[in-house]
């Protein structure tokens, strides 16, 4: 192939690729480092010897983590909350989005405004907190599944999808055959809408899996902690080794250092365990996210 690029364009391309490689490395490296540090000797890591590949390979950290009940319970709880919220969200969002996609629905502009307004004006944290408390959801697992079940952004995406994927003629001919709206929804709209349902499911699962603030607000009972709140305790509030804080004076400096290093190792491993499920699924689901954003950006 003949290269038609001018000299300046060739330089441009080189600089561009170089910059993109820098971006690539800067994005990957922090996560890569945590992964290799989690399987290296903590002494070597803290001495700064580990930066490109694992050194002093060991999986001691993981054997601790996989035995840690808090992390496993957090995992289980987060899974339940994510699935629960997703089901509620689908039931609330998909039929509503379909109805609002129907051009023959009266007052639908008004109803859309009712939803979209909440994107731009909210009551804020405190009134929201008071409402959820007054609904009796304090310390209830429902406080992590109900309040965000209707996401207006998802509603808009699904509505746009139905608007452009279900032809009016299809509805008309079904109506001529005496098909009512509910039957049409169940036997035509849901099968056609599989793609958009998948997208709404993904958005919900990821958002719920990564959320921690509502749990911080509403959940006191540690047995109900979702994974992110467990992680906050373990990773940020520095409490990984139970009883690590008290009685430190009684220990020798070497013992303190040994514990410190073990704690580091456990934290690296905990991060890996926390991001593993999404990172494994990521290559398969990322296409759908892009698609979702595209559909949403057409009008929204």
């Amino acid at each position, binding site marked *: 192939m003949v290269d038609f690029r001018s000299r300046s364009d060739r330089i441009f391309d080189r600089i561009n690729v170089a910059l993109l490689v820098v971006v690539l490395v800067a994005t990957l490296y922090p*996560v890569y*480092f945590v992964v290799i540090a989690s399987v290296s000797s903590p002494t070597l890591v803290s001495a700064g010897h580990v930066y490109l590949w694992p050194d002093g390979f060991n999986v001691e950290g993981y054997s601790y983590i996989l035995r840690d009940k808090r992390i496993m319970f957090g995992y289980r709880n987060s899974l339940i909350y994510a699935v629960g919220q997703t089901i509620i969200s689908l039931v609330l969002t998909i039929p509503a989005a379909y109805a609002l996609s129907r051009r023959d629905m009266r007052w639908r502009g008004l109803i859309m405004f009712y939803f979209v307004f909440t994107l731009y004006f909210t009551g804020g944290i405190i009134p929201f907190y008071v409402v959820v408390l007054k609904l009796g959801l304090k310390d209830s697992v429902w406080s992590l599944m109900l309040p965000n079940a209707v996401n207006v952004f998802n509603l808009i995406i699904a509505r746009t999808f139905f608007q452009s994927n279900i032809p009016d003629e299809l509805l008309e001919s079904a109506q001529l055959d005496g098909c009512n709206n509910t039957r049409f929804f169940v036997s035509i709209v849901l099968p056609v809408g599989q793609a958009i349902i998948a997208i709404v499911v993904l958005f919900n699962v990821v958002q719920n899996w990564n959320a921690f*603030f509502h749990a911080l607000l509403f959940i006191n009972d540690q047995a109900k902690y979702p994974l992110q709140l467990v992680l906050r305790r373990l990773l940020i509030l520095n409490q990984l080794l139970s009883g690590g804080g008290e009685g430190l004076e009684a220990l020798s400096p070497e013992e303190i250092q040994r514990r410190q290093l073990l704690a580091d190792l456990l934290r690296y491993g905990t991060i890996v365990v926390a991001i593993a499920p999404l990172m494994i699924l990521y290559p398969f689901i990322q296409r759908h996210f892009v698609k979702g954003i595209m559909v949403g950006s057409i009008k929204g």
Partner: protein
Amino acid sequence: MPRQTDDAGAVAGLHRPSAAEKIHETVRYLLRSWELYAFVLPAIIHVLLFRYLPIYGLRIAFTDGFSLRSGRSAPEWNEFAHFIRFFNSAYFIPVIRNTIVISLYSLATWPIPLALALMINEARSRFFKKSVQMVTYAPHFISTVVVVSIMYFFLSPRIGVVNSVIQLLGGEAIFFMASPSWGPSLFVLSELWQNAGFNAIIFLAALSAVDSSLREAAFCDGANKLQIIWHVEIPWIMPTIVILFIMRLGQLLTIGFEKVLLMQNDLNISTLEVVATYTYRSGILQSQYDYATAVGLLETVVNFAILVAANRLARRIGQTSLW
């Protein structure tokens, strides 16, 4: 406005329908289409409970003596006492200053995803292009808790890679996560790390719609790549840029509150206490619900006003707007 159904249109075409006819016609319509409203009703109720009830709850910002137990406060208006208390409190100046600094700092980095999209779009190898895209938006799926804990590690003065490099170059180790002067920068940079790739997606989509004959024509006229980007591509995707920018402005003061909260500690709080975290602290942790509601309301109102103003401006200069 809702569109008229066909039979309603026919009636309107013949003569002006009387009120009785209109009601009759509406009833007939509802008998036929009630299911559609049944489909929306659960979502309407949900939004009423979890979005509009809190908006109604904003009224406690204007009264005294709110009690969580009864859910009531004194019936009379307190003449903006909570707002005045906030203006006069020692927190007012630092909290507002921190909020503005972090907001404007974040806003200044807004074009970076656009630049990233333009760069990715210029990459010639398809494989390389796809790889950069896929890698750069992966961090978006990592939770805030994990991102902040990675920051603690990476920037730690004891074991952090960044400080190892600084020391290797002969510098002093810096305890970044405890440093007030580094707080805002770390917040903004980590937001970029997490979201720049994801936010570039929408620009990339707009760029893929640029008419390639325009590019070729510019190329034949001797334009180089930078000129094509500047004179062809950017004008083409301008409507997208404007809309996204307006939406961003509407969120101007909405700082990634969860991340700030997680980054805060006793040492760096002087630059990281923003309106939202202050609302949380004074409201939830110190149970001053009415006062904190007033503080939070200020932020909402300012955000909303900026959004409306930006939208009006965009309509005037660019003929694009959000509504």
